[in-house]
């Protein structure tokens, strides 16, 4: 256990019911782990509790059951060790692009002198290609640029782990492609540990090392974990030439269309371990993680 970077143990969430009725849990007995430097995507239909899991890892929400450990310490409340990129970018509209990032940087290193904060922020905004828009207000930016600022803000505090809550969901396909490329480049260069929610199968295959598949709620569970068995040096331009790409893609789409409903409404066994799947290669079960 101690070897894993992030460990999620028997996580469950039940929302309080109105009146005397009891609600079934949205999800229960969620167990998985993330290694340092790993990029993990989670895919599932709306309402299966993906965002809740991410919020629990971020420390923004409490689970009803189970624990999360990062780097051997239990996650209790939000921390600067985990940077979050929000679905709605969540930039402060009254601050400039630069100030938004500087606000985060100053939170992490309150003792830094002004020039150090400035050069640090500039570096991260240039990394996402926004070196020219430092003094713009978020309202003056396109959706893609806003989300880039969000990524820069999360990255700039140099967190141990990055949590992305469907960051490109609201973007058009072209913009999404460009930002995916940029994120891929940055993540490959920094070996950042990332946990990301997405609805986009192609996005998951492009970015992830492992893809966690969640079944539908109530009683949502991790149905299986798919390993993306392609070299990490993949690019968006070439990835679809790899024969392995379509095997993985078909497997994921099959899951979302058909198999994701199989577990809905069935309580999850305490010792449920999702199988680790390598589509087109071998199937090893249950996951040895």
């Amino acid at each position, binding site marked *: 256990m101690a070897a894993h970077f992030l460990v999620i143990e028997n996580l469950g969430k039940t929302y309080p019911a109105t009146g005397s009725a009891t609600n079934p849990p949205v999800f229960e007995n969620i167990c998985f782990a993330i290694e340092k430097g790993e990029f993990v995507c989670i895919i599932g239909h709306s309402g299966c509790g993906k965002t809740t899991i991410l919020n629990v890892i971020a*420390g923004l929400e409490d689970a009803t059951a189970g624990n999360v450990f990062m780097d051997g310490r239990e996650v209790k*409340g*939000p*921390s600067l060790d985990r*940077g979050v990129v*929000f679905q709605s970018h969540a930039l*402060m509209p009254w601050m400039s692009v630069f100030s938004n990032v500087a*606000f*985060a940087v100053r939170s992490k290193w309150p003792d830094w002198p002004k020039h150090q904060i400035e050069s640090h922020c500039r570096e991260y905004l240039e990394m996402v290609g926004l070196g020219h828009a430092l003094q713009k207000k978020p309202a003056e930016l396109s959706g893609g640029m806003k989300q880039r600022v969000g990524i820069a803000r999360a990255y700039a505090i140099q967190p141990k782990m990055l949590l992305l809550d469907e960051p490109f969901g609201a973007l058009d396909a072209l913009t999404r492609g460009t930002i995916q490329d940029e994120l891929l480049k940055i993540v490959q260069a920094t070996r950042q540990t990332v946990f990301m929610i997405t609805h986009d199968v192609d996005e998951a295959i492009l970015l992830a090392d492992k893809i966690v598949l969640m079944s539908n709620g109530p009683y949502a569970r991790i149905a299986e974990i798919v390993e993306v068995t392609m070299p990490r040096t993949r690019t968006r331009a070439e990835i679809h030439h790899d024969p392995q790409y379509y095997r993985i893609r078909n497997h994921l789409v099959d899951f979302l269309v058909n198999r994701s409903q199989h577990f809905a409404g069935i309580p999850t066994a305490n010792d449920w371990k999702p199988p680790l799947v390598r589509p087109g290669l071998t199937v090893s079960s249950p996951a040895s993680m």
Partner: protein
Amino acid sequence: MMRSERAKAALISVLLFLVFVGVWHIATLPKESAMAATSGADAEYAALMGKGAEKSGGFPAPAQVGKAFVTYLSDPFYDRGPNDKGIAIQLGHSLARVGLGFLLAVLVALPAGFTIGMSPLLMRALDPFIQVLKPISPLAWMPLALYTLKDSSISGIFVIFVCSIWPMLINTAFGVASVRRDWLNVARTLEVKPLRKAFMVILPAAAPTILTGMRISMGIAWLVIVAAEMLVGGTGIGYFVWNEWNNLALPNVIFAITMIGIVGMALDGLFGRLQKLVTYRE
């Protein structure tokens, strides 16, 4: 396009004003028959009362009011005893009272509104009190204020304080309570300290709503000060109006009314500008 539109609007405004003054002038022309009838006993009575003849002409004509404007605006700062001060001095007294009462209200309403806005429990607990206190005419507090404070000037300030506190308190609480969850979550993930969060996140996020409350409060305060000064007396534009009414100097009353309107407009404009300053586009 925009400029010509604006010029047209200005032109229409001026025309409307001229029409208004014209109609006013015609309506207040001395009536022949009435003048003729004012003979005998009436004329004698008028003579007995001194300058009575001038005043019995009824509603003042624009020219008389214009004369009052010239007289008062040409020397706004004179001070000839308690009942005869320049208009600027009277307005200054009123503005000082409004300013002081308003400032005190800000000092109470902003922190209180912040606290209430942060705590749904407090918000619910205090809601009945606010709902009962809010609709009370601030002038109804005057007897209590005079009795406890024993000073008419301070009582005036207290009345302004009471009337301007509610819109600010309610708007601040509402603004603080409805700060976007996302922004608070950002602050939480960045482990921002409570005080820094209050000033860097919550205050700017709620500022437009708070400023709206301040603008409403200032409007009400300016409405109330006239009535309060009529009641309390001594100085101020409200007292000036009442005093001129007692002198039966209606041109001066009309002049004072106009000044109240202009100052009120300026105050509202000031807060409108402040509001624009803190408003952000999402």
